[in-house]
């Protein structure tokens, strides 16, 4: 056994790999057991290493406040890729990885998570995490093995998209490598460019792909060493037949869970993939529509884009129509099997394209939110987004704001401000070729995706994301985003806990890192959280934040949390590490993580004023079966304060000095910033 691991629990490999793209050198750092104790792994370890990187920039005398001063698309940004001790073990959904950086979209904390098996194979090169800094003078891709890092000239991949690059590197490695790549999105520094894994899994949110592109890093391949094993403390705990082990109970709950059970038991995710939840989201009138103006969809339209539609697309397609065939796939060690490999056929039955998806969020943002009820078109655009390596949530959200803006300004053609008039100037060429950018026009979805992916024409401006795009024409309020990150599929007016979680999410408008509360509308009984209550909502929302943060820290998938609680996760973690975690200690890890993330944002200049949904949700009522609903700004201000207090922050949303001390974060926060806290 490696002596370095004696002081770390099982599950860790004990190494952080540092890659300097400027010097093209790599070094190995022993993973500090104390850092591992405090942050465990995944998102927790990621924000710790990211914060440490920015502190070092200060120590090097390069910046007074690098958090605020470093351009996210400069060489001084860092890319942190982390795993957890549970990654690659028999813990269900243990194939996840996390990536952190300063976000070129929000200008603050960047954080993204994906499944697959890349993280598993990173560990099997002997590292728990990679820290990538600097900037290569020319495009490179990296091959990481247990022997070290090879810096490869990415010239041959310069013209390739994300999936082509992956295929090339897989072929070169004789299919042994797992590959993360960027596509034209990242290379063109699109602010919502993703890093792609496999053929459609994305480290998607916040523009991490652009950070890679800015560093001339085009791909990162890991080739596992068969000799490297990921050990666990208690093998028997993972025996599904051991009634006293963690796995027995976990399997039972997953088998029974409505979302997680198998197809033969009519499990929704197993049967229809993630798109299976669209029908339910619509049934509870949460599904966004037309840039989140309302949640009203014709039922027949929903029937064209829901999970049932994808599952039976080929069967239901009439002669002369495009059709989609579907195959199941899954991430590493995942019993849920929500991924879908699809093939799109043209009207004559010829294959147009094969790919991964579309997922629920993709269809919600690029379908429902644009009034495009055409699954074949959304699928084609989804494939394109995968090739380009761009986040489909931000892509759909940006297009929605674009259509909204155009629709709003068009009738005012005589009274446009100079900024507003600029839109029509910038659009001349597009309209001439494709017609007007309006909701409900499926024929413009693919061309617009192409223009954004290649940053051409109007796509050049759309590639900046919805906030900057709308701001360019004088109407940033039409960007449905928080901290400039586009919101996902659930209208916040239909769930105040979800609304608050969007606002409090450190990476910006996100349903996962801020707390995935919207699905609790479908749980019924006490598990169905009050949709429009003010009292108590901040604490419910906070608990959701802690649960989802825990998932990212321990490397578990959010879908598993539909069936599992923190106690079950703690038992799994303990089976891997031999530690004595319980739900309370995991929540403590989560509080520490979100507090350090919050400090990162504060140091970047994002503060309380950025914790707000767009004005639309506070000024425009939507009509639902439950009545008219709208967010109330005064009530939300009160909820913000209660949320802040619940995690040890002051009324301005700044962690208190006492909180930093209690959470053992002082060494990761600039001393002067800490001193300025209450």
């Amino acid at each position, binding site marked *: 056994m490696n002596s370095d691991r004696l002081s770390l629990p099982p599950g860790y490999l004990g190494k952080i790999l540092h890659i300097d793209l400027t010097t093209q050198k790599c070094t190995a750092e022993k993973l500090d057991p104390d850092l591992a104790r405090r942050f465990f792994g995944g998102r927790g370890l990621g924000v710790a290493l990211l914060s440490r990187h920015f502190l070092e920039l200060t120590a090097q005398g390069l910046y007074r406040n690098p958090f605020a001063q470093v351009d996210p698309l400069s060489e001084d940004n860092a890319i942190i890729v982390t795993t957890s001790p549970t990654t690659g073990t028999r813990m269900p959904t243990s194939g996840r990885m996390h990536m952190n950086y300063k976000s070129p979209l929000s200008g603050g904390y960047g954080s993204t998570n994906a499944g697959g098996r890349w993280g598993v194979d990173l560990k099997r090169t002997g590292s728990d995490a990679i820290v990538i800094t600097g900037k290569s003078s020319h495009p490179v891709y990296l091959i990481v093995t247990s022997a070290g890092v090879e810096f490869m000239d990415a010239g041959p991949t310069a013209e390739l998209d994300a999936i082509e690059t992956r295929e090339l590197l897989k072929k070169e490695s004789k299919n042994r490598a797992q590959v993360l790549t960027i596509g034209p999105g990242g290379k063109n520094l699109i602010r919502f460019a993703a890093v792609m894994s496999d053929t459609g899994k994305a480290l998607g949110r916040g523009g991490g792909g652009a950070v890679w592109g800015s560093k001339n890093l085009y791909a990162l391949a890991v080739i596992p060493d068969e000799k490297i094993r990921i050990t666990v403390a208690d093998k028997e705990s993972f025996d599904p037949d051991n009634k006293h082990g963690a796995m027995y109970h976990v399997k039972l709950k997953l088998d029974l869970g*409505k979302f997680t059970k198998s197809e033969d038991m009519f499990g929704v995710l197993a049967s229809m993939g993630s798109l299976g939840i669209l029908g339910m989201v619509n049934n509870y009138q949460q599904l966004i529509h037309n840039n989140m103006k309302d949640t009203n969809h014709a*039922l*027949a339209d929903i029937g064209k884009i829901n999970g049932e539609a994808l*599952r039976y697309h080929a069967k239901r397609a009439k002669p002369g129509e495009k059709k989609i065939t579907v195959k199941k796939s899954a991430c590493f060690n995942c019993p849920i099997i929500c991924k879908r490999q699809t093939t799109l056929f043209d009207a004559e039955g010829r294959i147009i394209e094969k790919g991964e998806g579309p997922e629920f969020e993709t269809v919600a943002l690029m379908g429902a939110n644009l009034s495009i009820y055409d699954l074949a078109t959304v699928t084609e655009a989804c494939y394109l987004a995968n090739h380009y390596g761009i986040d489909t949530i931000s892509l759909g959200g940006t297009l929605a704001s674009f259509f909204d803006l155009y629709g709003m300004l068009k009738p005012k053609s005589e009274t446009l401000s100079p900024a507003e008039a600029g839109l029509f100037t910038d659009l001349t060429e597009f309209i001439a070729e494709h017609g007007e950018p309006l909701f409900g026009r499926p024929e413009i979805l693919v061309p617009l995706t192409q223009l954004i992916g290649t940053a051409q024409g109007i796509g050049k401006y759309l590639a900046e994301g919805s906030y900057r795009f709308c701001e360019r024409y004088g109407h940033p309020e039409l960007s449905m985003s928080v901290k400039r990150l586009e919101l996902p599929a659930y209208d916040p007016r239909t769930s105040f806990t979800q609304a608050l979680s969007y606002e409090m999410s450190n990476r910006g408008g996100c349903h996962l890192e801020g707390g995935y509360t919207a699905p609790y509308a479908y749980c019924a009984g006490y598990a*169905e959280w009050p949709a429009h209550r003010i009292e108590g909502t901040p604490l419910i929302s906070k608990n959701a934040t802690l649960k989802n943060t825990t998932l990212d820290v321990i490397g578990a998938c959010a879908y598993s949390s539909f069936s599992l609680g923190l106690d079950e996760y703690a038992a799994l973690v303990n089976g891997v590490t031999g530690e004595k975690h319980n739900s309370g200690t995991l929540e403590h890890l989560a509080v520490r993580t979100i507090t350090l993330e919050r400090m990162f944002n504060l140091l970047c200049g994002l503060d309380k004023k950025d914790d707000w949904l767009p004005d639309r949700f506070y000024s425009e009522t939507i009509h639902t079966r439950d009545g008219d609903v709208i967010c109330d700004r005064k009530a939300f201000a009160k909820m913000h304060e209660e949320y802040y207090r619940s995690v040890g922050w002051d009324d301005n949303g700044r962690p208190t000095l006492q909180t930093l001390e209690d959470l053992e974060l002082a060494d990761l926060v600039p001393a002067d910033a800490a001193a300025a806290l209450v």
Partner: protein
Amino acid sequence: MDTETSTTETDIFFPRLRRVGAAIGRVNGNNTHSGNLSIRDPHDPDLFYITATGCQCGSLIERDIVPVRFSEVSWGDARGSTESTIHRKILMIPGVSAAIHAHFMDTTFLSFDTRDHQLFLRFMGTDAKGREEYLFHPVDLFGSFGVGGVEIGSYFQPVGSAEMDERIPAYLTDKKVTVVRGHGPFVRGTSPEDALYTLSLLDHSARLAMFLRRRGVDVVALQKEISRRGAGEFFPVRPHIRKDGESPVCEVDDATVVEDFRARLNYNYSNSIGAYATGSMSQKISSNEMVYCPASAIPEEFDFPLCHMTLDFSDDDSADLRMHKLIYQHTHQNTCMITTNPLATAEGMAILAEQYGPDVLLGKNDKIPYTPAEHPAVLPIDAEAIYLNPKLGLVDIQQLANYTPENPILNMLRWYKGCCVVAGYGVISTGQTTLEQAAHNASSAERIAKFRSEVFLNERLLGGPKVGVFEPR
């Protein structure tokens, strides 16, 4: 059709399922969040509706009713109950339109038998995988005819498992109800109300059997005899059995009369004096006419039938109806209520068995005297009941077939202020004034039995005083 288009249908089914769910909750047939109810869509053979996972079946709201497809997965499979796959299969049994899973306490309690301890159930063997199977046969008249034999299966994983998906619908192919050992009953019906009827009746029969066994009567031997002879042979009469699909008709115009009946029906159901839609209740309104309800326990918000009827015997009279007529023909009683009263009935059976030997419960009643000087009775031990009535009349079940003026039931009602326990049947309560008087007797009888039974158990378990110490002298 996609399940998204089913909102309107949900609106239709919601009130029925809400009412039935509330009725189950009212008698603690579920805890706040357990159980599930389903119903087929009569207009779409591929669709059914089920209560949502984790919802409160006792206080359902509209969004708790979820559409689910038989043939294919849909979003409703995620929102619907964990046991929706079992319901799916139950509802596919020909003729079945509704299914309910609940956690009635006494029904579940009975299932905690083992092969070595057959207190309430008969061990019937194991299946190929070693899972034990038991049989329960109600030992009372209403349960025997209304429910019949109930198969109880043991399961390796008795919650939402694949083996439940497979075995429960199989049990229900030819039986109305099955019990998952240690978990609770699954029941099929032609409607949610029909399923509720079975559940409610089974729970009363289970309570009766449980109390009877605790009072020392070998209920398994009794069940064997009923099974051997068949209920039709074993029991002297047939009770009225609720028929599903008949819309209750109210022939009575006087709203105060209707409300009087409603109050008694609701009280009896909510307080478990009677099982849903069992028993009967009437008020004599002229020398040869009564207002009659073929039930004595109905949950709140349920409709109930109420009709005018002559007092002349008819060939198609049920045993219950004939008893009302007999009482009104030969006594001065003006109101009558027949209730299942499981505790009072069990207590009456236990007393008869103690005094005249267990064979009296098998129909051998020749040793039982019914003279003014000597006859069986149930003696209250609680002061309130003694103050009301120092004795309750008690007769064996064979008397139900006696339609002569000499039927000892009539004397019991005369002697004991209108209250008579009929072993294996229920309690007949009457009043010379209003239904309220009969209701008082019925509710009192159940409490009398409860006190007696608990003191008896205290004596056996804790060395407490004997029941007789408290009986009036």
